[in-house]
């Protein structure tokens, strides 16, 4: 059986990042956009943790914890705004949020 090494983790991270990126670009639903953002952040977390383990340096894993904490607060704020938006406009469609049109 093949040993699971750093490269596998990095490949997983890259695949997850790509999925997240596509989600960010394609999704029109704001809620799903948040999910895609979470996938992006977590793909990075995987890479952090894997590289940290590889070098035997805990800094990367600490950083991953920070990212999780920030992501949690970001989602809390984001969801709050999302609910307000939904109450006001009755939808959460990205294409209709264009008041900043140049």
């Amino acid at each position: 059986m093949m040993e699971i090494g750093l490269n596998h983790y990095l490949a997983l991270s890259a695949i997850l990042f790509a999925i997240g990126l596509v989600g960010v670009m394609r999704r029109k639903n704001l809620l799903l956009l948040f999910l895609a953002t979470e996938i992006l952040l977590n793909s990075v977390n995987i890479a952090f943790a894997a590289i940290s383990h590889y070098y035997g340096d805990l800094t990367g894993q600490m950083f991953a914890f920070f990212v999780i904490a920030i992501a949690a607060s970001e989602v809390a704020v984001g969801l709050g705004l999302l609910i307000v938006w939904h109450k006001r406009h009755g939808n959460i469609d990205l294409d209709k949020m264009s008041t900043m049109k140049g």
Partner: protein
Amino acid sequence: MELYLYIALFAPLVSSLFAALFTATPKKMFTGVVASLLIISAFVSSTILLVHILTGGEIVHVELMTWMATGGLYIPFGFVVDQVSVTMMMVVTLVSSVVHVYSVGYMDHDKGFNRFFSYLSAFVFSMMVLVMSDNFAGLFIGWEGVGLCSWLLIGFWYHKESATWAANEAFIMNRIADLGMLIGLFLVYWNTGTLQYDEAFAAMPSLDTDILTWMGIFLFIGAMGKSAQFPLHTWLADAMEGPTPVSALIHAATMVTAGVYLVVRANPLFDLIPHVGLFIASLGAFVAMFAASMALVNRDMKRIIAYSTLSQLGYMFVAAGLGAYWIALFHLMAHAFFKALLFLGAGNVMHAMHDELDPFKMGGLKKPMKWTFIMMTLASVALAGIYPFAGFFSKDLILEVAFAQHHFILYAVLLFTAGLTAFYSFRLVALIFHGEERYKLFGIHPHEAYKFMLIGMSPLLILAIIAGSFKMTYFEMVTAVLPDTEYHIHSHLVFWIMTIGTQLFVGLSILYAYKKYANNKITVPDGTSKMENSFAYKMLFNQYYIPYIYEEYLVKPYRELSTVFWEQIDLKIVDASVDGIAGIVYGTGEKTRDMQSGNLSTMLKWMVAGTIGLLSLAVVFGLAARYSDEIKAILSGLGV
């Protein structure tokens, strides 16, 4: 004594700035009064300085501060009161005091009363800088300053098209000449290494004659512009568009004599190059006759006096060119008095006649305007050079110089011009003051000017009469710095024949003018008489067609050339390239503004695209840096 120097120099500046405070407000009498008082204080200071110099006091020389000091160039703001500059200071401050007082009355009903005093005092300040400076750079500042003030004052009534045109003409003609002057100054600096008068003149005798000749020529070109010598003379007659006090102060007594002052001041230079001096004298004699001939037939009172000024400037240049600098300066002084008086008298007449300038439409004004009549007649007598008025002493001296130096052609021209001068001066006086009262046809009720204006003019009247008696005092004073050549006709008999002959000739010209123009048969010319259709009359009346030639052969081609440059070069190259750059910026903005649609997912897509683009660039450059040696090897293998 330095205190008086500062007062004489800066009182006009203070006056100008004070009047400038009120330029945007309606007429305030006190601006005129304060300005006049300040100018009079400058006059009093100049008088004290004159007395100081006359009683054998030392030359006052101050260095206010350093203006420029770079490398070998050192130019201070230095001012000097010596025998020559104190003469000029007296002339300038005296005439400007009279003109300021006179203007309080003359500009009485003008909307720009305060502004007028601001400009007029600024002019006096510039003129004082010009005459008091101890170096060429300071002289040049004053030179440009008086040019600027002249422009402001000629175009004082800027709502009149003709006034703005005349102002621009004067300014542009002076710029042309100033270029010559500037080249002259550069030559002085290059060859002597300094612009201070005393040092520069001390270094000149060791220079090459060719260089000195060029210096003299270029400096004289500057003088030609300011003093309106041929061929740069047309601006002076047109400058009469300005208010009359301006004509009296700037275009008769002071600014136009700056050219003569320059030649007198640079006398050590011109002494070294007598051939240039002879050219100056010849041009002066030519201008004297040329201008006098145009004055013979002109029908504009102020223009006649302007041509007369031009002609007298010619006399001054003859004297200066022949090396008789003190005589040139003496004539300058005497001329300033009677010519300013003549102009101010003309101003009175203009006021009385509601700005009518054609003397043929006046006549018989001696009854309503007795004092103006007396003043103008006496000023004309002085101008004609009748004994014992001021003009006799100075003008006769110039004739004697020409004769004593055996320049008989110059002498003959000047003598003939003296006759012409007498004729046109008294033609003017006769037409304005004698004969039938033709103004009645035009429904005008003339009145004499204010009392204080007449009293203000009286110092000039007195000086026009007695200035000649200062000749010896003056001679002893200025010859401390100017060559003290005295010109004697060797034979007494010849001298008396010349003097009496000149007087008779002038007297006959006056009588002829009276006979022809002081009768009751004069009518307003309507272009039908035989004289008016003669070739000579047309030639003179149209100023030898010189303004026409300038217009046709200089102004129009220049305008066409400018149009070509504008349409072909400015529009098609300069503007096109600037507009092109702006167009590219605009175009890219127009094309890319769709990116900023405000739609979050579109913008995210662009962001991702940008990140990928930058990342791939980073990768490419990273690889290129990593494998640079290999790439170079491959490229050299390909023979690049």
